[in-house]
């Protein structure tokens, strides 16, 4: 009986983590470790996959799996979220713990940071309490060397009783040895003798007492010493997990039972133990358990690490003295963003023009083909003027800024700058009653709001996590960013000439982003005072050492990834959208095209917001992907017949002006681009993350209301003052 429930339980866990075994001979290897130690980098180098890495804590929030072959065997590698400990006070810790404990991995690799070994050993020791099949990977050896930290790996292996391998995952050094050790441990070619943590007498006695009680039911399926320790520790979630995954019900070993055990073996009178609330009874014990582990880690680290401690972080500290200083912290942050925008704007111009030139050249060729073969006009219209043209616009206007902005931003991420942003801005978030890590999820939103929403998992408190999810859309993602750039460059900056153009464009985009951050804070505050009342919860933010970014890899990967991603989305979304627009422009009802009907319907409302019906319609049709908003606007104007040929970006400006755009329209489009309903992908992600239509709807409504309110107020004021 035990066996069947065991296997179903394990299957449940495997399913939860979506582990796919190609055959039952596959060897499962769990990859655990503190955050930011290079687990994903190890994972990528071994599997050749492309899990996101970044120099900040909590980059990986979901588990990923991949496989590699070694000595003709298939190893399934599972990249677990990084945790400081497995004493389970967050979901990630529970996922990691349950997988190591109940997922029956054939081996667990604990990735540690050579430059910060002592703290990392904490987790290693905790994992060694759960399982013997462990390989310790001391990663970032290259950085340790640079910082003149020497580690006696052999001694460390002797002390821990398991294989210890030094690696530099980024350059691939040591990975061969790591695979070898994993092979040997999983095949029992090496028998490990993990170090056992010795606790004080009270605890040891209680462990014994409880171990006796549970030994029979637990039967060798799980380390009974470890379970006893967890029970003493007051960690009741372990009982649920044991029941869920191996079908053993320990709930009769209740709170009181462990308390009884405590009373029996310690000097505390029984009545006192039983009458104290959980926290008090266990508080002190927990401290003692953790202290024993921490002290042991300290002890081991002293024996194996040799460094001139004071020196090695000098440079980091000097850099931080500037980047997070009172006087320069926030100005440098804005300046850095500004520089990135400027490079993007200036850099995107040339490829944009070049791509447009090529693509619209092809359009002429296509048209020529259609006429030569006498194909019907409507087919030419639908396919060339509809589908192809929209695609061409998406690629030429949207792709270049995305392909430039993304790697630049990733560069900052790899350097380790994002946690500094969170550090600088934290006080504002605290005042908004929001979580300090919301600054990090906000930054992720720059890449993609859907990714930002998933990233909100690093926030434990459900209330603050919801706030972070709802407000994530206030930073423009990589898909909306080019809209801002397009509007500023062809419109606002186009009004001046010369080199000042790019400066003005940069300034206005920076202002828009700052406005987005202010809105994030403001809306967070409003939410905290209304539907999501509460106080900010505790948080700790790690400031990792600055690391040299892998410039080459970033550029290749993000341009390659982005290009494929954008093209893929363009084909999926823009092509049908182009077709729809063309159809709408060419299907007439009582002499007026469907396009004009719809735009006319939206016109009165759009006018209140300082825009026109076509723009609003473009935003609505852009729901599947905001990348197509600008192309749709352009297509609609062209379809209305004012201009048929549009071969360079200069001509765009006249197109917009001839359709009644003023500076007020441009600003409103930018404001509305910053604040409207999230794209479909983001909304679906929100639904998945919150498991609630209600909060998805709120996330839809909040930025939309903000956008409408802002554009409306701005437009009315400007019109009242007679400025436009």
């Amino acid at each position: 009986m035990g066996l069947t429930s065991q296997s179903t339980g394990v299957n449940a866990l495997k399913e939860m983590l979506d582990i796919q075994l190609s055959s039952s001979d596959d060897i499962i290897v769990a990859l655990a470790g503190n955050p930011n130690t290079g687990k994903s980098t190890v994972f990528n180098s071994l599997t050749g996959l492309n899990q996101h890495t970044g120099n900040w804590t909590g980059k990986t929030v979901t588990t990923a799996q991949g496989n590699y072959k070694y000595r003709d065997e298939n190893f399934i590698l599972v990249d677990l979220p990084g945790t400081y400990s497995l004493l389970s006070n967050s979901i990630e810790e529970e996922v990691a713990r349950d997988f190591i404990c109940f997922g029956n991995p054939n081996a667990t690799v604990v990735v540690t940071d050579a430059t910060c070994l002592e703290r990392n050993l904490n987790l290693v020791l905790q994992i060694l309490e759960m399982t013997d099949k462990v390989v310790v990977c001391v990663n970032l050896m290259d950085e340790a060397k640079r910082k003149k930290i020497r580690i006696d790996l052999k001694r460390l292996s002797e002390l821990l009783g398991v294989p210890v391998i030094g690696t530099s995952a980024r350059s691939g050094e040591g990975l061969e040895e790591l695979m070898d050790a994993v092979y040997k441990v999983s095949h029992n070619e090496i028998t490990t003798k993990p170090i056992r943590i010795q606790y004080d007498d009270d605890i040891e006695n209680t462990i014994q007492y409880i171990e006796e009680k549970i030994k029979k039911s637990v039967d060798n399926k799980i380390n009974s010493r470890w379970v006893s320790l967890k029970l003493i520790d007051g960690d009741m979630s372990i009982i649920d997990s044991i029941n869920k995954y191996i079908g053993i019900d320990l709930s009769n070993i209740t709170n009181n039972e462990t308390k009884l055990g405590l009373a029996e073996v310690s000097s505390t009178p029984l009545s006192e133990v039983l009458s104290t609330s959980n926290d008090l009874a266990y508080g002190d014990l927990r401290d003692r358990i953790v202290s024993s582990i921490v002290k042991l880690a300290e002890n081991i680290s002293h024996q194996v690490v040799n460094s001139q401690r004071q020196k090695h972080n000098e440079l980091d500290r000097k850099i931080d003295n500037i980047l997070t200083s009172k006087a320069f912290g926030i100005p440098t942050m804005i300046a850095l963003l500004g520089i990135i925008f400027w490079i993007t704007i200036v850099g995107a111009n040339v490829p944009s023009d070049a791509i447009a030139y090529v693509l619209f050249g092809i359009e002429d060729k296509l048209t020529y083909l259609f006429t030569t073969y006498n194909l019907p006009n409507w087919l030419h219209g639908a396919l060339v003027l509809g589908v192809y043209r929209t695609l061409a616009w998406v690629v030429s206007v949207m792709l270049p800024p995305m392909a430039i902005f993304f790697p630049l931003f990733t560069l900052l991420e790899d350097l380790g700058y994002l946690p500094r942003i969170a550090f600088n801005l934290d006080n504002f978030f605290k005042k908004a009653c929001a979580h300090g890590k919301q600054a990090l999820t906000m930054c992720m939103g720059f890449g993609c709001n859907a990714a930002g929403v998933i990233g909100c998992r690093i926030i434990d408190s459900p209330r603050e996590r919801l706030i972070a999810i709802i407000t994530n859309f206030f930073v423009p993602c990589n898909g909306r960013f080019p809209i801002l750039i397009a509007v500023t460059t062809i419109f606002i900056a186009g009004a001046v000439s010369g080199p000042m153009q790019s400066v003005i464009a940069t300034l206005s985009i920076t202002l828009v982003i700052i406005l987005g951050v202010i809105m994030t804070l403001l809306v967070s505050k409003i939410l905290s005072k209304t539907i999501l009342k509460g106080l900010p919860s505790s948080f700790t933010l790690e400031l990792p050492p600055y690391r040299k970014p892998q410039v080459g890899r970033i550029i290749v990967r993000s341009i390659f990834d982005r290009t494929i991603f954008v093209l893929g989305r363009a084909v999926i979304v823009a092509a049908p959208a182009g077709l729809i627009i063309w159809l709408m422009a060419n299907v007439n009802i009582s002499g007026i095209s469907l396009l004009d009907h719809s735009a006319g319907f939206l016109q009165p409302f759009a006018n209140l917001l300082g825009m026109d019906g076509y723009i609003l319609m473009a935003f609505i049709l852009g729901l599947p992907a905001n990348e197509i908003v600008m192309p749709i606007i352009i297509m609609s104007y062209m379809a209305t017949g004012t201009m048929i040929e549009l071969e360079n970006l200069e001509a765009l400006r006249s197109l917009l002006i001839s359709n009644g755009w003023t500076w007020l329209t441009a600003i409103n489009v930018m404001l509305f681009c910053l604040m409207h309903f999230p794209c479909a992908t983001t909304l679906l992600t929100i639904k998945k993350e919150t498991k609630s239509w209600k909060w998805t709807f709120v996330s839809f409504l909040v930025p939309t209301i903000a956008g409408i309110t802002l554009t409306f107020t701005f437009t009315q004021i400007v019109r009242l003052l007679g400025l436009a």
Partner: protein
Amino acid sequence: MEGTKIPLHLIPCGKSARVKELTSSGNLRRRMLDLGLVIDTVVESLRKSPSGDPIAYEIRGAVIALRSEEASKILVELI
């Protein structure tokens, strides 16, 4: 100052102190322990963020920023 317990966030930047007591409870206490903040751990106050809060500390070789709410629940002795 020797021997008096003060909250961690009050120690001046650049100074080190020894942890003497954690006054927090529950999850927060656990999280502090997970960072290695057990009794007698030496912590150095590194720098304040631009608005003065949070403050970054060096704890067992890692740099961790704590808001004053959390740091005030860690009592230390200056060394």
